């Protein structure tokens, strides 16, 4: 309940600031009666109304049985996973696809309960074969990054 209120309040603040941001949006000259400002303001306004109601009367969250309550350990895991994904996004181009997915994929396999060796083996294999599959076979260009030297 409390979490929900906090989230709704935060979202309300965000939509308020977005509305402020949208306020100056006006076309220099315009051929149409409705400018670029009306629609986003309408959406933000409706969202704000809904969120205010949610803050006043949050609806109870139904948990399914297999969903354990969030404890500290899971939160740390989720934080780690997000960090890994961000590292992946950051190194995707500089390290290249194969190295970046190995760098991120192997610890990720560990995070989901795999052991180091089989995890490393599978992820290495998969990174290389996915690269070949997409870049060579399916014409989806992927960055080679550091491995660029091997190409020539």
């Amino acid at each position, binding site marked *: 309940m409390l*979490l929900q209120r906090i*989230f709704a309040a935060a*979202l309300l603040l965000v*939509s308020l600031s*977005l509305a402020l*941001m*949208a306020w100056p*949006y*006006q*076309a220099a000259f315009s051929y*149409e*009666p*409705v400018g*670029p400002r009306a*629609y*986003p303001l309408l*959406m*933000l306004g*409706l969202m704000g109304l*809904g*969120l205010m*109601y*949610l803050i006043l009367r949050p*609806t109870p*969250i*139904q948990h399914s049985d*297999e969903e*354990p309550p*969030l404890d500290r350990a*899971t939160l740390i895991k*989720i934080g780690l*996973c*997000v960090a890994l*994904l*961000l590292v*992946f*996004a*950051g190194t*995707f*181009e500089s390290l290249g696809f194969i190295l970046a*997915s190995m760098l991120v*994929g192997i610890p*990720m*396999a560990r*995070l*989901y*309960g*795999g052991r180091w060796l*089989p*995890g490393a083996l*599978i*992820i290495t294999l*998969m990174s290389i074969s*996915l690269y070949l599959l*997409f870049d060579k076979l*399916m*014409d*989806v*260009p*992927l960055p080679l990054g550091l491995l660029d030297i091997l190409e020539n």
Partner: protein
Amino acid sequence: MDTLGYLGQGFGVALSPYNLVTALCGTLIGTVVGLLPGLGPINGVALLIPIAFALGLPPESALILLAAVYLGCEYGGRISSILLNIPGEASTVMTTLDGYPMARQGMAGVALSLSAWSSFIGAFIATCGMVLFAPLLAKWAIAFGPAEYFVLMVFAIVCLGGMAGERPLKTFIAALIGLFLSCVGIDANSGVYRFTGDNIHLTDGIQFVVLVLGLFSISEILLLLEKTHRGQEAVKATGRMMFNFKEAASVFVVNIRCGLLGFIMGVLPGAGATLASAVAYMTEKRLAGTSGTFGQGDKRGLAAPETAIGASACGALVPMLTLGVPGSGTTAVMIGALSLYNITPGPLLFQQQPDIVWGLIASLFIANIMLVILNIPMIRLFTRILAVPNWALVPVIAIITAIGVYAVHATTFDLFLMVGIGIFGYILRKLDFPLSPVLLGFILGGLMEQNLRRALSISNGALEILWSSPITFGVWVLTAIMLLVPLLRIWRKRSAQRRIPANA
């Protein structure tokens, strides 16, 4: 009877060897994707969009591929429901109720093939319905102007909330988030940059593939982290694989009834497969009365939801093709795919590009037949896929998702945005907000704004145009009814609650 002529032409397109292979690949990929935890029809279809584009598939083949994947996913979802008692997607929850008990009684093979058969009949009924009604609807929809479209989209969004059951308010908020996100980027009419924060990568708006994969794949990856169970034992599919004639005949009436029901639910925006399967199961349970053994492996309890899912998956394509207004998350993704090819679905599509429309409809028939045939010999392979542990699966899903996002624009900004959207999606999920309204809102948002502005340009700013024509007025009345449904439901629940303590 031009319809039959067009359908013949469509079969000509779909039966070309190239498109047949495409459909076969699509059904296989779809089944595997539907089988795996963490991937459903929405991310399956979304992942394939950039790849189909990169492969240089012609539009009709791409559409056939995506439709085959869509059907395959609905199919694959059932395998884990029946053998593991874990529904692959929300829509197959009802399948577990009688499918898993059947598998426990040593009828796993029969349960699988019977469910495949049921889903085939459902899809067949719905495809026939589509052949009958889609051209009519398209002909009628040609008269629609921007005001009518705007009102129709409002109706679609409101329907979503009205059908959502427990949490209409959260559904509305989720849809509004999507509607809002669609206006990030440069405004096509005036050239004003909206909400870009001077970021050059946002000029084009948020890429739709990025939103879908972030919202569905990344949040699912984070969600899988919490699930503690792993390596669950699947029921071995041994013994007779094929259902016999008597079993098929015993559920035939159920198939027909639930197929019709599923088709109607599929056409209605916002209802979709999840609701259709639930309603079908409940209806059949009530109709069977005491003669049924529902919940303990009744064949009718297996056939009912499966038929409805098959039918509604095809039915959902009707509003998408004829009106260009998607009614479900998956069809919203398909609209996004079409717009990559510069195809705007809608009534004109039937006149201008009949090859695409009828080729798609014909390939639905073919994909359904393929799925029934595939299901029987491949089942052992599919059960082996179920045994892949999460630790090997999740990193690979993450990597493939990143490839899908990168393939669109080849910028790492999109990857960061995807992670951000994924975290947001995860929070929404934890707080019990449904995600597919966000997606639907995102797709409808752009269309909705354009139509609203066009309508008001026509009327020179007078708002009356939004409700003056009989069609708009009628749709507003329907919208009002849909708005009242959740209120009525809440009110009835409250009064029921009040009655219980009064009796005690």
